[in-house]
């Protein structure tokens, strides 16, 4: 039960954070120039966006949940199960960023979920 709650935070908060960052990045636009000066201005520009801060907060929360679960569960169990973020990411990207998820990608996600289920059975 404790594991389930922490996995929920890792997967949902982590992925929601990435979606927020992705939304902030799309707002800035594609980076073409990789000189130190333009990278600095890109970083400063991104730090002015509320989506960026929301993303950072959610991703930090996900990271601390990962640390919490690692304090009592095996790494070889935790990391494969957090692959569930592929499924949450696809659902979120569809709903929140308007991305179209192809049928092949859904097939891949279903296979990932099957793998996660098998790893979950191997829990000690």
């Amino acid at each position, binding site marked *: 039960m*404790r594991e389930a709650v922490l996995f929920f935070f890792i997967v949902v908060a982590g992925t929601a954070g990435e979606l927020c960052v992705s939304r902030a990045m799309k707002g800035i636009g594609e980076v073409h120039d*990789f000189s130190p000066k333009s990278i600095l201005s890109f970083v400063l520009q991104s730090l002015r966006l509320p989506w960026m801060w929301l993303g950072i907060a959610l991703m930090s929360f996900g990271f601390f949940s*990962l*640390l*919490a679960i*690692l*304090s*009592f569960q*095996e*790494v*070889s*169990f*935790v*990391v*494969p199960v957090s*692959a569930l973020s*592929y499924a949450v990411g696809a659902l979120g990207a569809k709903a929140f*960023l*308007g*991305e*179209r*998820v*192809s049928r*092949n*990608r859904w*097939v*891949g*996600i*279903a*296979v*990932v*979920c*099957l*793998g*996660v*289920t*098998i*790893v*979950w*059975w*191997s829990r000690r």
Partner: protein
Amino acid sequence: MTHTRRLQLKTIPLILISIILGPLGNVFLGKAMKSVGSLTSGRILDLVPIASRAWMSGYIWLGISCLLIFFVVHMLLLTWADYSYVQPATSLSYVSITILSYLLLGEVISPLRWLGVTVICLGVFVVGRTSPSTTGAPKRA
């Protein structure tokens, strides 16, 4: 040397580095957190000693450093290589994390867990073999 060959020469070593460094970072985090004690209590006050011990642990910073370098390598890769090439390749990191937790943390990997990890790799591989942009951006030749 052809252009493709040159690209492969810098892409493959970096993919190998990211397949090792990302999981290695997680293994170090796991080692650090196992040594600070189990976070089993829900009380906020109990978190303070554990959090401060974690902060002082060398392994935590080793793990965070590995993950930061992994992140930079991953970004570098994506500046020239296609996401649909990088992602299936890095699906192998689920295999390397399993091997590393066995070797460095002494975790026992049951055949069932190996099966699950293999299926996850396969799934990530299939996810990665799909088009990286679907929001109508013009496809560059």
